[in-house]
């Protein structure tokens, strides 16, 4: 059976986690809601009963106040006549302190007072007592507020309303919880999908990358879209791909060089062997001439000289081939590159060579003899390219973990089309020469773990940059000195 993809497992795990948590919370909420309802019901029963009793008491209180007003009305409607202060005192004595009293002419009163005092409920929740004051043409209107009783009534009404809405309220709580829970689950699902895809998408890209590598597509790169650990993984993959390309290039170059060396070795061997017999044979032809014809003798001598000269040229060519074929392995030691440069430059006292050397250049792992060969090659090339009045500048400096030596000439520069193959053997832009010089330079620098490149110098001419690694122990030196 095919395994479930990681992406879906991550999403399922996150959703399961959210659902599980929500389920636990739902059970807890349900339990607490039930507990709350049970408590609430008990409280409600007691509260309802208490409020009903309170309302009954309020009604009794209302009736009592009404009777009290009727009694005091009977009392005050009988002589003697009382002024307002005496009326207030009479109400106060009856325990009715918060009465509002007003005396007005009897003809302004709407109430029929022929039957005696009248007690009635009026607007604004007040009880009103109206009496005709004895021995006067005036009437007393007394108002008693029912504020506390009305409060009881309102409380009962509000309680009843809440009781009626209770079921809807519980349903609303449940719905609110369900919606919130659905929101949480939805959020968890979206987050799960985002995380799942976020993790597995780059893994898929890496998988595709490895497949491309397996198909020998070393140029394939994974776009880096993030800066976290996955981004670092992608970066490492791309770096690995780049290293593979570089290693392949170096291996191809090494194989090419080895092939060229083999050719050079065979050529040297095949050409060198007959050179000595040819030279001896020609000399014998010249020395053993028995005749005395001066014209012919002169002719033989000229021919012998030409052959000897060409044999010498061939010998030097063979020597060059032999040198290329027999490039010794490096003998590295910590050396001062600036000193090496200065020693080489001394060989050219008449040349216009300017030095611009970094004073604190660290010691490098160099094979001094080979490095001299490199410098001589580059200076010779530069002088050839620059002509009679040409100038050469040599700079040394450091950049990060690399020491760089630049040889800049004032010649015409290297055409762009030749730059890619100028370091290959038997490629030369000069009319003379076998094109082995820069190939040798390239090999030596690569053997040092460095890199050589050619560009146009800012002021014109060719600029050869040789990058050489700064060894760790050389970097540690300044700290040790401290």
């Amino acid at each position, binding site marked *: 059976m095919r395994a479930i993809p990681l992406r879906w497992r991550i999403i399922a795990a996150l*959703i399961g986690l959210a*659902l599980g948590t929500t389920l636990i919370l739902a059970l807890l909420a349900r339990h607490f809601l039930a507990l709350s309802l049970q408590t609430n019901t008990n409280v409600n029963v007691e509260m309802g009963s208490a409020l*009903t009793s309170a*309302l009954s008491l309020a*009604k009794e209180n*209302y009736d009592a106040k009404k009777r009290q007003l009727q009694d005091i009305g009977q009392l005050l409607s009988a002589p003697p006549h009382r002024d307002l202060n005496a009326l207030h005192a009479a109400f106060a004595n009856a325990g009715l302190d918060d009465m509002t009293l007003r005396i007005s002419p009897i003809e302004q009163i709407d109430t029929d007072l022929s039957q005696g005092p009248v007690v009635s*409920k009026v607007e604004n929740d007040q009880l009103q007592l109206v009496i005709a004051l004895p021995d006067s043409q005036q009437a007393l209107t007394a108002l008693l507020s*029912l504020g506390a*009783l009305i409060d009881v*009534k*309102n409380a*009962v*009404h*509000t309680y*009843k*309303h*809440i009781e*009626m*809405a209770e079921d*809807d*309220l519980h*349903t*609303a*709580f*449940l*719905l*609110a919880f*369900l*919606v919130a829970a*659905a929101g949480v*689950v*939805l959020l968890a*699902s979206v987050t799960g999908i985002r995380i799942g895809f976020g993790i597995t998408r780059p893994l898929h890209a890496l998988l595709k990358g490895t497949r491309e590598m397996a198909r020998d597509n070393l140029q394939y790169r994974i776009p880096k879209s993030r800066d976290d650990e996955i981004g670092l993984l992608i970066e490492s993959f791309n770096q690995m791909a780049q290293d593979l390309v570089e290693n392949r290039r170096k291996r191809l170059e090494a194989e090419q060089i080895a092939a060229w060396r083999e050719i050079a070795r065979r050529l040297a061997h095949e050409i060198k062997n007959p050179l000595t017999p040819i030279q001896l044979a020609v000399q014998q032809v010249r020395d053993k001439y028995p005749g005395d014809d001066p014209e012919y003798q002169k002719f033989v001598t000229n021919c012998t000289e030409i052959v000897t000269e060409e044999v010498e040229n061939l010998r030097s060519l063979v020597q060059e081939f032999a040198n290329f074929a027999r490039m010794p392995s490096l003998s590295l030691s910590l050396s001062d590159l600036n000193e090496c440069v200065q020693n080489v430059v001394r060989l050219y006292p008449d040349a216009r060579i300017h030095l611009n050397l970094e004073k604190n250049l660290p010691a490098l792992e160099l094979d001094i003899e080979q490095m001299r060969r490199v410098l001589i090659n580059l200076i010779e090339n530069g002088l050839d390219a620059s002509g009679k009045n040409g100038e050469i500048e040599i700079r040394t400096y450091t950049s990060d973990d690399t020491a760089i030596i630049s040889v800049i000439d004032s010649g015409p520069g290297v055409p762009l089309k030749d730059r890619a193959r100028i370091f290959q053997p038997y490629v030369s832009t000069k009319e003379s020469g076998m094109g082995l010089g820069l190939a040798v330079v390239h090999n030596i620098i690569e053997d040092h773990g460095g890199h050589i490149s050619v560009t146009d110098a800012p002021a014109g001419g060719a600029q050869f940059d040789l990058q050489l690694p700064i060894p760790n122990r050389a970097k540690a030196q300044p700290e040790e000195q401290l």
Partner: protein
Amino acid sequence: MTRFFIIQALTVCTLANVQPILAQHIPQDSLYIYVQSDTLRLDATIDSLFSKRAIDAIETGMTTSIAVQFRLRTGRGNNLGLHSLLRRLEHDIWEGQYRLIRRSARPDTQITSHFEDIRRACSELQGVTLARLPLPDEPITLQVRIDVNPISSEQRERTRQWLKIIEKGSFLEFFFSLDRSTSPEWIDLFRFRPSALPHLLDE
């Protein structure tokens, strides 16, 4: 996952659509529709107009609105007439009096000390005008909608102040409201053809 969301959505919809079961109804044997002069009229008795809870609320003095509405609809859904009986019942618990105020172009007030009088006045409907003739002679459905609401707007405000959790704009307000947003459903009461109705002679 999809199934889970569907189930949740259905649950929410089902819970949201729960309608109160109406206790009030008009028995068929109490229903009498007739033509008098050029008017279609109705006599009926509403059974259980006041629920126990409503009576309980009225007895505590809660002002209650009573709405009984009739409408006539054709088979194609056209409304032929709407008649509303709107009343307001106030109970003065201190004086023990009920005041039934009819809200109409000519309001009148009935005052009584007996709730039974109120029940009778609200439940027993006599000569209710449904529509003026002529009506199309096709099957017509009489529908009724009854609403007894003991919660006045002042009371709603008082309760809202009490229940601070259901303030305007709160999350819970999405699912619960003290304001009644929906009216009771229309209920089919009777189907008839105008030509088949009895005619009552004018007194």
